[in-house]
């Protein structure tokens, strides 16, 4: 029994962290915030060099053949630097959509291209994901029609992966006639939200054998765990930043970190934040190794990190005093990334509702 990251996973995290530290000084984030497309070509190229797109692609298709745990290790690093990169949707969910829900032929066609970083997927759910907004799409004889708001990683995709309410999925080329994308800069300037409209657009249907909903949920849950890990990384960054700030900021002739109320706020923060790391690891491990626990741990990880992330974001900002509220430190990029993550792929309220349903804890319509 060993509940810890392997040496390889730690080294992988370090190399990714070093790479991103060079590529993403705060100025780079500020520049990216102008377009806010969630995609930076140079950054993407260096992630491809590192082999990140192939992280979850089986080795026989040219990938690293690693698991969701490795994906959350990467996600924590990406969240820690607020990286504008299409990871959760394009690299994690799209890959798993093919791995778990496509024929060998389709896998042969697509997985190598994913691993090579030649294709990038925007991902949208018409239902199932538990997001607010419009989600109405239909598929008839290989043609997709309808409208879906709140697609992720769809700022600069080559293709779109669309899940229908019945769990069936299809891939549509981004430049296909009948496809229109409306990108919104989001509260989080490192990832946009995108509205998709399909007008009888040609679509390639994935074949999820006989269990489309279960397969869709498996992809969705992996995405939720990875988003939770992204929040963990962002929250840890804000915590660390705040901690070093209060150790040097002086008020009333004292380092403010010496005030008991400040100290106790940090004690409260670390007491809720630190166990989240193990929670995310466990949920990620469960996606690949513990099928019975996969759904419940994913739902709770997404929900719990959404809540903890919000508290840490607020308290860490507060610890910076006025500076934390200004644009000067750029701390708000992480604050907003956490806000974004909370709402995508189902907020805590909805995820716990699913967790309840999963355990048969449905509600009485009117208890009073």
């Amino acid at each position, binding site marked *: 029994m060993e509940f810890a990251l392997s040496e390889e996973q730690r080294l992988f995290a370090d190399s990714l962290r070093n790479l991103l530290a060079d590529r993403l000084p705060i100025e780079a984030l500020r520049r990216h915030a102008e377009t806010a497309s969630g995609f930076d070509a140079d950054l993407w190229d260096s992630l491809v060099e590192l082999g990140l797109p192939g992280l979850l692609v089986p080795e026989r298709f040219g990938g690293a053949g690693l698991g969701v745990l490795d994906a959350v290790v990467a996600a924590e690093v990406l969240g820690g630097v607020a990286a504008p990169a299409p990871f959760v949707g394009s690299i994690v969910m799209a890959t798993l959509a093919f791995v778990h829900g496509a024929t060998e032929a389709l896998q042969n066609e697509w997985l190598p291209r994913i691993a090579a970083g030649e294709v990038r997927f925007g991902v949208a759910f018409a239902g199932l994901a*538990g997001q607010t907004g419009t989600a109405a799409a239909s598929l008839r004889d290989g043609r997709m029609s309808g409208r879906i708001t709140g697609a992720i990683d769809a700022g600069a995709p080559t293709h779109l992966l669309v899940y229908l309410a019945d769990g069936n999925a299809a891939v549509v080329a981004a430049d296909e006639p009948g496809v229109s994308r409306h990108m919104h800069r989001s509260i989080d300037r490192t990832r946009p939200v995108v509205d998709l409209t399909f007008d009888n657009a040609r679509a390639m249907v994935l074949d999820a054998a006989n269990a489309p909903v279960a397969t869709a949920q498996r992809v969705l849950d992996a995405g939720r765990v990875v988003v939770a890990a992204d929040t963990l990384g962002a929250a840890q960054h804000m915590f660390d930043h705040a901690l070093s700030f209060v150790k040097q900021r002086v008020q009333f002739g004292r380092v403010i970190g010496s005030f008991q109320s*400040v100290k106790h706020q940090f004690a409260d923060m670390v007491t809720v934040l630190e166990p989240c790391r193990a929670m995310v690891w466990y949920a990620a491990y469960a996606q690949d190794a513990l099928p019975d626990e996969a759904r419940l741990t994913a739902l709770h990880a997404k929900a719990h990190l959404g809540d903890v992330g919000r508290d840490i974001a607020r308290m860490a*900002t507060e610890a910076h005093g006025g500076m934390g509220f200004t*644009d000067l430190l750029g701390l708000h990029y992480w604050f907003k990334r956490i806000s974004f993550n909370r709402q995508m792929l189902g907020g805590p309220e909805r995820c716990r*509702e699913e967790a309840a349903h999963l355990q048969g804890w449905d509600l009485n319509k009117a208890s009073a």
Partner: protein
Amino acid sequence: MDLSLSDKHRALREEVRAFIRQHGHKSPKLGGGRKRPDEKALDWQKLLVDHGYVARTIPREFGGYGAEPDVMEAAVIAAEFAAAGVYAGLTNQGISMLVPTLLEVGTDAQKKQWIEKTIRGDVIWCQGYSEPGSGSDLASLQTRGVLQDGHFVINGQKIWTSSAHYADMMFLLCRTEPDKPKHEGISYLLLSMKTPGLEVRPLRTMTGRAEFNEVFFTDVRVPEEQIVLGRGKGWYVANVTLKHERSMIGDAGKLTQRLEQIIALLKSTEIDGTKLIAMAEYRDRLLRLQGEMLAWKAHSLRLLTEAAQGIDSGVKRMIIKYGGTMLGFRLASLAVDALGAAGLPFESQGEDAEDDDATTWNIDYMYDVGLMIGGGSNNIQKNIISERGLDLPREPKVART
């Protein structure tokens, strides 16, 4: 206990309603950024001053209405304007802070010179208090004012000066007696924003808007006589001002309005075909907040009554800022969650324009975090509540080791 109005106040209410029926169409739009009041807003303000619906208790000689203080009258007026959705008049730091301060400690000349212009909106003020190095510890401010041939020569920097980019005047705290203990070395000056050597730079916050400014002083010369109360009295004057600061924060009316908006939001928003009001966690958070708001509203009625009776509400009043800020944040949090993914698109039109609902809620959400920090952070507020309100000992002096 009687929640009905006295005849006098019922009569006032009728009068206000008649006024609104007759003149309401002249009211500028509510809200809408924080720009300098335009023509329409100024005409409206003057109309309100003349009818005594603002500056009601300010003496006639200084351009006010000269009525006897009566918070219940103020409450009746506020309620009617709110109910009719018409603009209740300018609320800026000149009107809410400088005017009452001058009335209490200004010279007759200063009162004559500034009060009328200020309440009529012809002169806009900004507040020069906070500095980068002195956030919660305001009294440690370092901006210097050196008296030379009849002028204070100001050098230093201020921050969080909200309306500096369009204000005519500033009331400023600066250190004129560097050798005195920190609280006794500060003076309170009035100066024109056009004074040479004064530079205003917008300060962008996490909301993406420049709600504040930084103001830089380089040999800014302020005539000696523009001091209020005298050298080294600035800290005292500032506390007179703070005492008058109407805590917009924790305002039950505004919070109640927020709750109503959230209820509407939860009834109109769906996830996969289910209304949020019919989803347990959203609804339960709404119910808890509704309960807390009932307590908060009743509490503010109690404070209103005590104010009317001339009772100092003590700790009951001191909790408003802290409690109201936290309540406001939790309301905004629920709104942001109710908007969910559909509320993530964010394009603020800037501080002078209207934003869409989602953007407005997101800004409120972040601005409330700002409120926990600025204007006396939560920690400062909790010190005030426990020390002044509950008579617990001040933080002991730290031994210099």
